[in-house]
């Protein structure tokens, strides 16, 4: 066991690395939460809010990098294994962007060509005292009121 001395030195390094990554992850989480709290005071469709959401997503990616790279030890593996994991995930990023873009486009198209869909966003849900909102009741109420609300808007 002539490696014990080298191992001990390595061990101290390994534990240090674990502590360092733990602190980094905790800090990233706290920053995400601070941004989340900060976002609460902003109006719902402001650009600032969108910017903060983008920042939170970037922080989330950083957390993923640290968890996969250090906790799951991927950073210390052979490059080809790293590629096996990273390349499909990069394609996955394309998957995410494509589908969110698609969903957004679907919303714009529906708002443009489906007047009923567009009208829905101006109808306030009735305030309830107790119990659940029944979807069927909602639809019956909305149909006749739609034209009236449109002229008011």
């Amino acid at each position: 066991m002539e490696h014990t001395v080298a191992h001990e030195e390595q061990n101290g390094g390994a534990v240090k690395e674990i502590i360092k990554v733990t602190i980094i992850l905790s800090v990233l989480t706290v920053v995400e939460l601070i941004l989340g709290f900060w976002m609460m005071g902003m109006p719902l469709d402001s650009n600032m809010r969108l910017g903060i959401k983008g920042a939170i997503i970037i922080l989330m990616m950083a957390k993923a990098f640290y968890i996969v790279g250090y906790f799951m030890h991927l950073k210390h593996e052979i490059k080809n294994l790293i590629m096996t994991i990273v390349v499909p995930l990069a394609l996955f990023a394309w998957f995410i962007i494509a589908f969110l873009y698609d969903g957004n486009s679907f919303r714009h198209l529906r708002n443009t060509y489906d007047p009923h869909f567009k009208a829905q966003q101006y109808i306030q849900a009735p305030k309830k005292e107790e119990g659940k909102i029944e979807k069927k009741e909602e639809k019956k109420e909305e149909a006749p009121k739609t034209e009236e609300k449109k002229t008011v808007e």
Partner: protein
Amino acid sequence: MSTTTVTPTKLWSGGKSPFNVEYGKLMMWYFLMSDAFTFGAFLISYGTIRFSTNGWPNPNEVFKSYPFAGESTHAPLVFVSIMTFILIISSVTMVLAVHAGHNMDKKKVVKYLIWTILGGLAFLSCQAWEWNHLHNEGAWWGHNPFVNADGTASSTNFTNYFFTITGFHGFHVFSGVIINIIMLIMTLLDKFEKRGHYLMIEKAGLYWHFVDLVWVFVFTCFYLV
């Protein structure tokens, strides 16, 4: 990263493990990739539906309570932050267990495995409370008592996605806890001492970190953005 670069003279002659990892570890990575695609598909589907609708409930109005709080508590992000930290810390204890395994330190492996299991159980309890709390407010698959952020009527997509994805994740946490308990029993029975290595703990560790990683994404998508 100082990996010894061995010139692969006879790569296909056998006796050499691809990527220099054990078979079981590589298979665990492949399984985790497949699971990542499954969770990813769920989350992307959620994102697409959310992007395609005009209104969506404000998470700070939906998730605003914690155990033993009053009726009119408005404390968004508090409870879910606690859950996130529990899972991160349990991931850290798992790393320490794997590290102890590298040093063939059975006592430390047992200690850190126990902490990881406790962390997992604490997370599951928190998630169960959250589900129960929301259910008491009328939320479930097919029932959404919340309105959109802009006051319009919301669809059941919100609750369907929430319960399905957090349920799927919770199921993974549960199976991870079971796996860790089995690891603990095997460690106590000296199975790994006899084998001469704690590689099985490392594989269980990969699964546990994956569970933590998925939570990072789920928590961000449902509670933060």
